[in-house]
């Protein structure tokens, strides 16, 4: 395989991945920290390296509505957003999945106002977990690029036909430069053939799409949607494995486990913080502590099998997330515990909430979490906000 290394930011890696996936139409609207994605795509359309229609929409609601229009005639659509933009288009996000349009969207994970903040946390996309989109959270720029290609392949699979959201931590990932291997276009074309579907309006076979149903039929459509999402787990694993064979990079499917087998304490993560946690794991292992990190890649469909297997290992489990469902706990934690509840032996778990509004999660924070997990003391609280600047015991 010909090597083509480029030193780019996460956003630029996304744009490179999108170009390789050859969407027919891009509907674009700016929002920090996503904007560079649509800027680079404009450059590519301008320099002729991407043959796509570039559509200037007047809002994110329209960005997704336009993408649905594109998909409704059987063409490939791309859009990207973040935070306020994702919430602004929320109605259309649900609409696209119900319509079974395999649109791919990049989301730069960013905090939600108020207070305003352009920095990263994951409350935007996690707030739309129930919208029927596949959600993956990537760890670095290379994975971001590669997932744009995998995303279309999974989303457009005839048994899946479900839109796909690729999430990148705002700034930490979107604006950090890394060397990235850019795959060969010919190889991508072979891996990802042009979109074919019967779920479209066509001149040969006219159709009415996005219809209404009475209570007599509605639930069956929702059931089919649920089944397709559940079934996408196998397709996600297959596509990732095939991608690994062709391009030499494999992402371990739904989750990625690091030094968990004999671990007494495991920290679960989502997104870019995993890198830091891995470093701390190696440091603590060198000191003789049995610790591991378990990265959740997909929040939807949820990696039930993998989380269950982890739960069986008997370690104390922490769930670190940049999210809080006010008045309850972090949503990732809720999802993890619901799988743990199916196990015979109870898993001791605790939720660590941090990184809200872009606050750094430091190695010291993570070391503190592992020490808490390793202490074997019963947990005094279920949810702990880490890295706080004020006293949380007041």
């Amino acid at each position, binding site marked *: 395989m010909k090597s083509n290394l480029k030193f780019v930011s996460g956003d630029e890696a996304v744009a490179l991945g999108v170009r390789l996936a050859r969407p027919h*139409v891009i509907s674009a609207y700016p929002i920090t920290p996503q904007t560079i994605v649509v800027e680079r795509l404009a450059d590519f359309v301008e320099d002729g390296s991407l043959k796509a229609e570039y*559509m200037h929409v007047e809002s994110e609601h329209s960005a997704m509505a*336009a993408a649905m229009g594109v998909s409704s*005639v059987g063409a490939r659509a791309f859009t990207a957003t973040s935070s306020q933009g994702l919430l602004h288009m929320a109605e259309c996000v649900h609409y696209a999945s119900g319509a079974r349009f395999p649109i791919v969207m990049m989301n730069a994970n960013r905090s939600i106002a108020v207070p305003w903040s352009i920095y990263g946390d994951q409350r935007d996309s996690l707030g739309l977990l129930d919208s029927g989109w596949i959600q993956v959270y990537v760890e670095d720029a290379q994975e971001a690029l590669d997932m744009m290609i995998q995303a279309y392949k999974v989303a457009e699979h005839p048994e899946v036909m479900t839109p796909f959201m690729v999430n990148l931590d705002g700034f930490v990932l979107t604006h950090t430069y890394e060397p990235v291997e850019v795959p060969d276009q010919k190889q991508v074309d072979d891996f990802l053939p042009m979109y074919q579907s019967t779920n479209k309006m066509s001149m040969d076979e006219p159709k*009415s799409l*996005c219809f209404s149903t009475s209570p007599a039929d509605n639930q069956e459509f929702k059931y089919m949607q649920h089944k397709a999402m559940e079934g996408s787990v196998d397709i996600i694993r297959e596509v990732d494995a095939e991608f690994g064979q062709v391009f030499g990079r494999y992402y371990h499917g739904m989750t990625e486990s690091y030094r968990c087998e004999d671990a007494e304490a495991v920290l679960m993560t989502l997104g870019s913080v995993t890198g830091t946690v891995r470093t701390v794991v190696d440091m603590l292992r060198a000191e003789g502590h049995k610790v591991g990190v378990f990265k959740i890649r997909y929040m939807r469909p949820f990696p039930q099998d993998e989380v269950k297997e982890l739960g069986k290992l008997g370690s104390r489990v922490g769930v670190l997330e940049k999210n809080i469902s006010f008045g309850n706990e972090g949503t990732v934690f809720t999802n993890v515990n619901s799988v743990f509840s199916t196990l015979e032996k109870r898993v001791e778990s605790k939720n660590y909430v941090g990184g809200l509004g872009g606050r750094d999660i430091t190695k010291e924070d993570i070391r503190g979490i592992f020490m808490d997990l390793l202490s074997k003391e019963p947990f005094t609280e279920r949810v702990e906000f880490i890295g706080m600047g004020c006293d949380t015991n007041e």
Partner: protein
Amino acid sequence: MTRMSDFNIRPKDLTDQEYFYGHKACAGCGATIAVRLALKVLGERTYSVLPANCMSAVSFIYPQMAFTTNAIISPFASTGAMLSGVAAGARALGIKDFQTVGFAGDGGTADIGFQALSGAIDRGDDIIYICYDNEAYMNTGIQKSGLTPYGTKTTTSPAGENLPGAVTHKKNMFEIVAAHGIAYAATASIGYPNDFLRKLNKAKSVRGPVYLHILASCPTGWGSKTELSVQLAKDAVDSGLWYLAEYENDEFKLNRNPKEFIPVEEYLYKQGRFKHLKEEDISVIIEHRDKKWEKMRKTWL
């Protein structure tokens, strides 16, 4: 040079083919006339986009679809954006010789879908946007919209002591759209079908965005007799409360200039929604009408 009359269609030249039937609209629904005629002119190779409204509610009830041509329901606010997406997708796939038309209500056009409509016109997309104006949010049960005329009684402007009938006049959608410098815009009425057919035919030939605003009576929301629907839509024009006009190349043109208006009362009092209007309300309506016509006659003829 092509003249407008070149686009005339004789009703007997319309296709016998039906592209919109079997829907569940009320008897006497004016909007269904607009949709049916539009598709007859635009033809089989048409993608229709309908946001949430009466027309989509009565024609996409699974498993009975009332459009024989391609059609899709868009989110309420999204007609303009989805039209652009459909047209762009079809173009990108190399599909040739097709029309992309939207059928949005007054609420879906002048209120919630206004931004997306403005965006689509601004992009210069090759689409036809038809606003069928029944002058209220009908599908949700007759609520006031930005195109509800002065004085109208609706379920949210109950014409009572504390909440009078609509206190503002209709938003000036036609001129607002024209102010975008749109390729072609026109008003119409289901009471003047020949005029509407000609404008549709013209719209078909225009490159770039087209906006057609057609008054479409609604016996359910207007409190009028079903058999009067076409007559009322004609009376609205003849009384000067609606008008037939066009905009193209920076110029407005008034298509119908009655020497004398029929009395507005003749139009208004045939409808339950205006029954409560007092003399002073009628004066407000007439004054507003006359101002509008004075301007139109001065500059649009």
